[in-house]
């Protein structure tokens, strides 16, 4: 007994140093490349820091000037509004499509795994490639693939459109390919959620005479509550990080029509070398993401409290 206590005691002492040895690489890397840049972003947002040091113009503390300027910056407003609109349309569409796909591939049918594979495949195609393929699909000529599909599906009522050059059509166009690429990921998360619902719940409902629709809204949807919250929140955060599609397909155009928060931060912070202004944009972006994440925690906690 005494011997054992002694071993444990010495083991504990060793653990103190050893634990830091085990943790040091990760802690140092996170500190230098995540925590410090994070606080730098906040600090730099209050300066006129340029990317390339200018000896004639030393970096100065400018107080809230960057944020005041952002407040009156029409391009920034446009970018932020675009992200909100994108999220507002894509999040419900992509979430419900993901649930539909999950329910479909959760059936015990022949070849069902083939369909699951097909629906998931776009997730493994890089967004840059996806953007290039869809650039050609959206070709503005009457020979264009999407133009042809739309022409046929509307029985010739709709003529060739310049999808990416038209301010009204460019968003639906980008939304469609974003959903195409991303929905398989959420489908798989929903599928895992569906498979974790206890079968007894459905058996009991069937005994009570509930039909498929009643079971879906009475059991499936409530049981998937936490999964849905997770999917909605992560898709929303993703929507606010929108960059690649816009950079490749439209470079923010036509005009400012497809400018986004991160695209604007990239243009200001990198292309124009205005680190201070770019940092202020990313600080606002982070605050939005933080609010979305806190919403998730709030709703999930409430769920636990109810239980």
């Amino acid at each position, binding site marked *: 007994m005494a011997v054992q206590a002694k071993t444990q005691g010495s083991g504990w002492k060793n653990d103190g140093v050893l634990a830091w040895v085990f*943790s040091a690489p990760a802690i140092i890397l996170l500190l230098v*490349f*995540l925590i410090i840049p994070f606080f730098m972003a906040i600090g730099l947002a209050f300066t006129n820091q340029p990317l390339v040091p200018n000896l004639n113009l030393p970096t100065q503390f400018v107080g809230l000037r960057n944020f005041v300027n952002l407040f009156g910056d029409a391009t920034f407003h446009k970018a932020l509004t675009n992200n909100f609109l994108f999220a507002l349309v894509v999040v419900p569409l992509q979430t419900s499509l993901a649930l539909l796909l999950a329910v479909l591939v959760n059936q015990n049918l022949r070849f069902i795994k083939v369909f699951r594979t097909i629906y998931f495949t776009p997730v493994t195609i890089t967004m840059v490639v996806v953007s290039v393929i869809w650039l050609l699909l959206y070709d503005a000529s009457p020979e264009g693939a999407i133009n042809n599909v739309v022409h046929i599906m509307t029985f010739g009522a709709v003529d060739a459109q310049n999808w990416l050059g038209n301010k009204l059509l460019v968003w639906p166009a980008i939304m469609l390919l974003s959903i195409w690429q991303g929905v398989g990921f959420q489908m798989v998360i929903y599928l895992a959620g569906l498979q974790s619902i206890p079968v007894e719940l459905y058996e009991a409902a069937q005994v009570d005479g509930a039909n498929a629709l009643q079971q879906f809204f009475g059991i499936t949807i409530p049981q998937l509550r936490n999964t849905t919250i997770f999917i909605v929140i992560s898709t929303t955060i993703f929507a606010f990080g929108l960059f690649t599609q816009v950079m490749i397909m439209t470079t923010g155009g036509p005009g400012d029509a497809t400018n986004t928060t991160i695209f604007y931060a990239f243009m200001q912070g990198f292309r124009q070398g205005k680190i201070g202004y770019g940092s202020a944009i990313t600080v606002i972006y982070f605050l939005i993401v933080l609010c979305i994440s806190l919403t998730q925690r709030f709703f999930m906690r409430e769920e636990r409290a109810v239980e």
Partner: protein
Amino acid sequence: MFSSYTMQKRLSRVAIYVVLVALALFFLYPAVFMLVLSLQPDETQIAADMGTIFSVIPRTISLENFVNVFERVNFGRAFLNSIFIVGMIIGLGMIVNSMIAYALARMRWAGRNVVLGIIVALIIIPFEAVAVPLLLLTNRLGWLDSYHVQIIPFVANPLHIFLFYQFFIGLPKEIEEAALVDGASRFRVYWQIIVPLSGPVFATVAILGFLAQWGQFLWPLMVTRGETFRPLPVAMQTFYGQAPFLWGDRLAFAVMMTLPTVIVFLIFQKWFVQSVASSGVKG
């Protein structure tokens, strides 16, 4: 299980298959379109065919566009750059992240709870939020246009640490304790007991890391200048904007960039699906 039972009752099988096939066409069409038209060397034929049935059934099978890509740019270089960068991030990341996770899950040390709390909080910070100051920082370090500027900042990953941590606390303690009593060092226990038992979580982290890193575009766009250190996504974007603007060549580039990942996915499909599913299990 439930759905198979009730859905079959409500809808006929045929109707379900019609929906399944229609959706499959939607998800397959752009990929098949890319592949088929990449085999067509005649640019005017691509323009004429892209909205017709010949965008999914090849008229000709020619590898001319693929040869063109190799003649026009150093595709192999960009490809190996991507493999090296992503491989290093995943390889180093698995060591660094699993080691701290082991310390958090199994060792008793002052500061353990604080470190764990900070790591969970860090999961929220998206990379985009720190990209601009990180550019300034790495520029000051003189790191721009290199491999390490694309690797080192992404090695430690709070989400991966958390996934490892969750897995490790679920492992039975008995074998480890026996080994420790027998005088094995903590490091040996980690390396010879924990690591071999943790295949699934290592696979999950590797696959999630791959999906996130292979397509990384914003960061390499900011930190690479020429061909030397450029990974595939930036090379694709540059190639897209390079004269002569030939869709056949662009699509051949896209196919060569996509095929390896799709093949890897098809082989390790089960693991991909499990990994993505486990990324959503929270709360």
